[in-house]
């Protein structure tokens, strides 16, 4: 146990790297293994209980089991599939959609195009904007109120406006994704430049580095972690844009598929769509986190 004398924030519930050994306390091997893996064990257990409970609701296991006790009101524990579907139904639907009809791949591609374009636009506009705002003080004064106002507004509220401008179609989808994703990128880029360690800049300046070199060798590298963090947020928000953009009757796309399935009470397909989006989001964020970890190698551990 080492209490940092400078009082660094540390996790309250962490068992430090060392424990003072008192005598020869022996713990049964099983208990020690359990404690080491407690997180995974409890997590998996609870998830499984949840899934089983879910399945049971749809199939009426609990309704049947509790009927002797509760009588007719036990029927409440049987829920129609249109309300909640069930893990097995969803799995079956997923299998169908991915491997039999293969319809979902087309939807993914359709949504993907819009997403990539929208996110790409957000990166191309947002990052330079943020960097410029960080670098040029007057520029930041000018754009800050606009960015703050935009940030405070739920950007989705602009959707009807976008539809007025460009109708429904690829343009609309790209624009709403852009609107949702651009802010985290711009804000983080701005913050990245502004929180560059001034000492580094001082050293470089005193060694005669010009503006461009300063930017390229000091500011940009130290900004990368911020930018990546902003990218992570932008990915998630872009996903919202994918689905929202397809509200107004898109020809295809995961969001549209979800909406149509919902309208037809095909809850299992809805869930498949939801899980697909989640999966894509998780994969993308994981990629960014891997890059972050590679880039973060030089950082002194917090």
């Amino acid at each position, binding site marked *: 146990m080492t209490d940092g004398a400078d009082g660094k924030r540390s996790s309250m519930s962490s068992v430090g790297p060392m424990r003072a050994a008192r005598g020869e306390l022996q713990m049964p091997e099983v208990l020690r293994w359990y404690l080491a893996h407690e997180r995974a064990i409890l*997590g998996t257990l609870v998830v499984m209980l949840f899934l089983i409970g879910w399945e049971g609701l749809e199939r009426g296991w609990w309704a049947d089991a509790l009927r002797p006790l509760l009588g007719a009101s036990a029927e409440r524990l049987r829920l129609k599939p249109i309300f909640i579907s069930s893990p097995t139904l969803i799995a079956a639907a997923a299998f169908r959609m991915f491997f039999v009809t293969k319809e979902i791949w087309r939807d993914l591609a359709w949504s993907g195009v819009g997403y990539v374009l929208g996110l790409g636009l957000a990166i191309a506009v947002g990052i330079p904007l943020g960097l410029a705002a960080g670098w040029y003080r007057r520029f930041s004064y000018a754009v800050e109120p606009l960015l703050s106002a935009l940030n405070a507004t*739920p950007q989705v509220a602009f*959707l009807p406006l976008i539809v*007025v401008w460009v109708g429904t179609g690829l343009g609309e989808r790209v624009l709403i994704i852009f609107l949702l994703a651009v802010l985290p990128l711009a804000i983080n880029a701005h913050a990245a430049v*502004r929180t560059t360690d*001034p000492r580094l800049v001082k050293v470089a300046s005193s060694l005669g580095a010009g503006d461009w070199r300063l930017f390229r060798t000091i500011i940009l590298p130290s900004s990368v972690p911020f930018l990546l963090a902003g990218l992570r947020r932008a990915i998630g928000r872009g996903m919202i844009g994918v689905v929202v953009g397809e509200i107004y009757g898109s020809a295809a796309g995961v*969001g549209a598929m979800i909406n149509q*399935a919902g309208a037809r009470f095909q809850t299992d397909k*809805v869930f498949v*769509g939801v899980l697909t989006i989640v999966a894509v989001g998780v994969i993308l964020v994981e990629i960014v986190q891997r890059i972050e970890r590679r880039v973060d190698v030089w950082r002194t551990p917090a």
Partner: protein
Amino acid sequence: MAIPANLELAAHGERRRTSLARLYLEHERLAIGASTLVVVLLLWEALGRSGLVDPLFISFPTQVAQAGWQLSHDRDFWNDVEVSATEFILGYGAALALAIPLGLAVGLSKRLQYMIGPFVDTLNAVPRVTLLPIIIIWCGIGIWSKVVVVFLGAVIPILINTQSGVKTSEARFMRVARSFCASRVKIFSSIILPGTVPFIFTGLKYGAGRALLGVVVGELYASTAGLGHMIADAGNTFQTDVVFFGVLVFMATGLIVVALLDAVERRFEKWRPDPR
């Protein structure tokens, strides 16, 4: 030659300046910000009014203001406001009431965290919009589906931030408490809780933004009333001025809610050296 914003030295040398110039420099931020806004508004007005860009597409400030004025006399508008406000307050309030105690509990108990963790992470990763069809099946297109969306949106950030606040109770304060033999309850009330307050407010602010988003998304998707519904309707009928006004109302709400939270936070955090 531009120098990065944070490094520009305050010292402008010994040059003499007119008092007007000095006044400007002191309030430069305000001056430039305000004037940019004004320029944008003027440009907008010019473009729309002159017809260079069809006002049907972009409207212009005076038209928007006029639409706003007319709406404020419209009973339906206020009904919409009430509906949206109710959805927000109910959903956000419920999220608050659940997420803060739960966040505290999860922060304190490792086991609880292990059990709830998977659900929180999953819910965090799911864009609520995707769940709307299911929520609608459950709750219809009335007010309750929006309340649920708002609740789901706000509950996660508040929970995560509260939990985070509990877990990062500074070790040195815990040590102080232990050296004075503080009971567990005392540790909670005197060390953990006060230290968590800033985190709770961060979560509340994030949650408020997502709650507002939930109102809009829910109403755009399927609704019979509410401001989002009004905006969607107006968009369909190319009443661009009404659309802009609606967006402005949402913007104002967002700013006001955050400002309110900031004010409340400052009262709780008199002990902080600088305001956030």
